[in-house]
């Protein structure tokens, strides 16, 4: 089942001589459980693509569908509800709310969606526990390490019945061990059926994805083929 579909999406900012084509005729499909990385240099349109995919911005032309529903036919309220219920966002700088504890940060989207606070926090605790963070649940963001903060941000992005995870350089500020832990969390979410799109300039991160799409000057220029079985990389048993 296709969770996210971008069909011939273009985005232009400004007009006249200052017109900038951030995205040009981009088409992209993400199935349930698929992990797609979008690679490109700064200014290639990665963040614009993610904003449009997450209904945070409207395309200039083209259509975006989430779970088969076209965003162009949704009201502002419908989109807000879709974002709360179906889409999880992870940002490079975590974007945790400093006045809330880790568990409150995670439970907030559920509460905004009408779930009673106690129930929401119980669900949030479950997710934090699954990420090895139950002991940090009462900590505030400024008491968490970078790796812990990003895990809380991922917990917030996957809590509830989210179907789509959108991440912008999710491990940009982390060391390689914590970055790997973050990518394993994204992968685990995909194994549960979540579709994920991670935009990054980092090949190391992108290599966790099933498919890597290359973006240049707002256009999709290439993508990787499904990787062959890893066994092919191991040494064959030498003949005696």
């Amino acid at each position, binding site marked *: 089942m296709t969770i996210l579909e971008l069909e011939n999406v273009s985005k232009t900012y400004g007009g006249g001589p200052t017109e900038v084509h951030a995205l040009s005729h981009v088409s992209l499909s993400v199935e349930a459980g698929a992990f797609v990385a979008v690679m490109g240099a700064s200014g290639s349109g990665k963040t614009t693509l993610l904003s449009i995919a997450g209904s945070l911005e409207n395309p200039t032309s083209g259509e975006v569908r989430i779970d088969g529903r076209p965003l162009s036919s949704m009201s502002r309220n419908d989109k807000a509800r879709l974002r709360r219920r179906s889409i999880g966002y992870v940002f490079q700088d975590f974007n945790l709310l400093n006045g809330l504890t880790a568990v409150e940060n995670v439970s907030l989207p559920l509460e905004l969606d009408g779930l009673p606070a106690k129930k929401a926090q119980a669900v949030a605790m479950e997710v934090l526990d699954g990420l090895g963070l139950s002991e940090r649940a009462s900590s505030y963001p400024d008491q968490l390490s970078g790796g812990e903060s990003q895990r809380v941000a991922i917990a917030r992005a996957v809590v509830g019945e989210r179907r789509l995870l959108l991440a912008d350089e999710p491990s940009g500020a982390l060391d390689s061990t914590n970055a790997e832990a973050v990518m394993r969390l994204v992968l685990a979410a995909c194994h549960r059926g979540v579709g994920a799109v991670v935009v990054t300039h980092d090949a190391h991160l*992108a*290599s*966790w994805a099933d498919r*890597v799409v290359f973006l240049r000057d707002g256009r999709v220029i290439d993508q990787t083929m499904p990787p062959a079985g890893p066994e092919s990389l191991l040494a064959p048993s*030498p*003949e005696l």
Partner: protein
Amino acid sequence: MSIKHSLLALLSEGPKYGLQLRQEFEAKTGQVWPLNVGQVYTTLQRLESDELVESDGLGEDGPRRTFRITSKGDSELSTWLHTPPDLTSPPRDELTIKILVALDLSKVDVHEVIQVHRRYVVELMQQWTRLKENESGFDLRLALAIDAELFRLDAVVRWLDAAESRLNRAFSEPPRIETSQPLRLRRRMGVR
């Protein structure tokens, strides 16, 4: 990859015979580097003639001949482990040469050449990462060997990204008067 020193390292743990050395070499490198038994015996002969190992097989050849490290071999192993490899001379990297050559060919789109290589390297990285995802939790040596390969390939992608960015800048700016770089340095870097 120094087979010679890897075998010395294995023998520093105690005497071993050839087949055993091959098996342990593969196990300790996470089966990432293939090694055939012929390479093992050729290397052992060379080590023996250099007095870095000795055998107590007394004329006996083949799989039952046991080798042990000598004190000279111990010293050689320690020196090797503590000596950084010579990284001063850039290797004659085929990929670098291809991009440099593509620059001079008017019929070739160098960006396309860069992307072909970038895609290939990222696909390879995906394969290595799958292997880590599936197996490395159980095998520390394999995880370390895969990390080494992933960082090496990542450096290739970074160089391709930097090359593309440098080319974009070079093509968008007015041509500059070239300063004459020392000829020897240009030759050493493989630049015409």
